[in-house]
């Protein structure tokens, strides 16, 4: 028997491409956010609510990720934003190589701030670096206050947690303190905002967070 040392990480393939994406974005002064949540938590609605507040400050770009349809991209397109829809077919998460290809379809020279809306899924997206500057996750208050400890990786990897649909708090048994406490147990550095896309509650704080994150991330 002859031993051959390998010393290679199994995830190296995605990491290499994520590094390339990161370098390409940094080189152009683009700040990128990876938006993650369960299906229906409100990622696209959040973008639709947010874009009018950001359009005049930033040149925006969006990459959408879904198994099928370009419904989400169409909603963004209606707002006049450069958007590309990735349709994964059956893959449950975006990976770096999908984003690499999508980046070719956008006019990067004209973009300052890029939102990557991941496939709706509380599990797999957390495992794949896309080359983003930070991860923002949404948990809508209709999903249950016990979710952080059930899906720890996504909470652990996020910079910001947005508790969405707060206009519905009276209709569900969601203990906001419990959800926050457990999320912070998993990730003490997690920032948390409460928001409603429908009423606009909390949108200003979200915009301020974006402004701060953008300048901290060296946005040009």
């Amino acid at each position, binding site marked *: 028997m*002859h031993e051959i040392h390998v010393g290679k990480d199994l995830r190296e393939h995605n990491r290499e491409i994520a590094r390339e994406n990161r370098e390409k974005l940094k080189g152009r002064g683009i700040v990128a956010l990876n938006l993650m949540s369960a299906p229906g938590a409100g990622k696209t609605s959040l973008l639709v609510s947010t874009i009018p507040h950001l359009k005049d400050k930033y040149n925006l770009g969006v990459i959408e990720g879904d198994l099928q349809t370009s419904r989400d991209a169409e909603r963004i397109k209606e707002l006049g934003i450069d958007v590309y829809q990735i349709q994964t077919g059956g893959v449950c998460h975006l990976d770096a190589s999908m984003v690499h290809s999508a980046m070719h379809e956008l006019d990067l020279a004209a973009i300052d701030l890029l939102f990557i809306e991941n496939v709706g899924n509380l599990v797999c997206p957390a495992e794949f670096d896309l080359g983003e500057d930070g991860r923002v996750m949404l948990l809508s208050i209709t999903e249950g206050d016990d979710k952080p400890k059930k899906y720890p990786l996504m909470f*652990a990897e996020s910079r910001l947690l947005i508790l969405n649909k707060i206009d519905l708090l009276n209709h569900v048994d969601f203990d906001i303190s419990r959800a926050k406490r457990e999320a912070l147990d998993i990730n003490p550095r997690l920032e948390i905002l409460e928001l409603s896309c429908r009423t606009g509650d909390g949108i200003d704080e979200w915009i301020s967070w974006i402004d701060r994150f953008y300048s901290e991330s060296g946005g040009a």
Partner: protein
Amino acid sequence: MHEVSLMENLLAVVEKAAEREGSDHVDVIHLRLGEMSGVNIDSLKFAFEVLSKGTVAEKGRLEFEQVPLVIVCNECNYESSPESLIFRCAKCGSASMELISGREMEIDYILVDEDDPGKG
């Protein structure tokens, strides 16, 4: 976890490594998996059975070495092995912790047949 795509990556790396050495038969693939890597070993073994056919690893087997979950406290430098994903210093209670080991997913080494005619 995505054991099938991990296995595709694994076999691509192993084939390259074996080819470089001029070997066409891999006996053992030694993997280091962290306690918190989230990899399901049974799924990985199954993916190996299916995907290794027709590759240099076809008649080989996977070997697993588990790497323990170890964290260190940023405040008092105490190292500990937590029982759960809630990282707290067992000594001073700080929540400011760094991961030292436990999330590895690595191909450490492979064993190839010494008697291979080799491709030179």
